[in-house]
């Protein structure tokens, strides 16, 4: 089976611009198919671009940073802090006498800043009424489907340190 068509003996203008009206259907369909296949190639190039980006992207570096002292936050209180860099805001919550949790403040839907709702004991996104569990950051309602990235905490005496980020909440 010959996949490629034989070169037409007709000149290009005659091959592309049909003389007969019945040929027009073929020419328009062929050109539309060409457009579709070029679009498909564009999608493939997009996938390759994502692949190359993921291969060459460096692993994020998470510094150990002192973020708060335990005594400064009351039970049910929150503190905002930047981590792992100044552009990324996170939210620290004191859920009990000795229990703290911290999450990225970016909603996993469209990156609005989430806040702690003490009355409902959950993290809420004001943009599209999304809500996340305080216990594990999992989505409870609204459009978010992924949990909030959880900041790994360590405690040394009264000082609280952020040591990393878990993307799975």
């Amino acid at each position, binding site marked *: 089976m010959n996949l490629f068509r034989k070169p037409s003996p007709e000149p290009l203008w005659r091959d592309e611009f049909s003389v007969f009206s019945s040929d027009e259907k*073929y020419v328009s369909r062929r050109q539309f198919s060409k457009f579709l296949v070029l679009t498909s190639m564009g999608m493939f190039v997009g996938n390759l671009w994502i692949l190359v980006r993921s291969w060459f992207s460096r692993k994020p570096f998470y510094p150990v940073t002192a973020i708060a002292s335990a005594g400064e936050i009351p039970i049910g209180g929150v503190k905002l802090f930047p981590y792992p860099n100044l552009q990324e805001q996170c939210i620290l919550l004191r859920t009990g006498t000795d229990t703290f949790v911290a999450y990225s403040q970016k909603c996993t839907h469209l990156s609005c800043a989430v806040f702690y709702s003490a009355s409902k004991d959950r993290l809420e996104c004001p943009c599209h009424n999304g809500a996340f569990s305080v216990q594990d950051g999992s989505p409870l309602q609204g459009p978010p489907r992924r949990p909030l990235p959880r900041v790994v905490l360590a405690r040394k005496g009264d000082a609280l340190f952020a040591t990393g980020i878990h993307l799975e909440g």
Partner: protein
Amino acid sequence: MKQPGTPARKKGLTAIDGAMALIVILLLVQIWLVSATLETYLAGHNETVLPGAIISGTIFLACFGLYLFIERMDAESRGSQR
């Protein structure tokens, strides 16, 4: 200039329409695949990127194969008229 359609031409046109419909369906799947791969990549899950690229490449090759089929059918159908 009008030219009467023959059964062979109509058959060719039907085959081309079928191939085009298949390309459109594959393209829709591919568009969804790109958006899903991008979404998971931005969420920090790199494990879906390679399978996504392989499947996208396979779909592109399938579309290209269908395009070659359309070209051939077109040439055959029109060639039979000349």
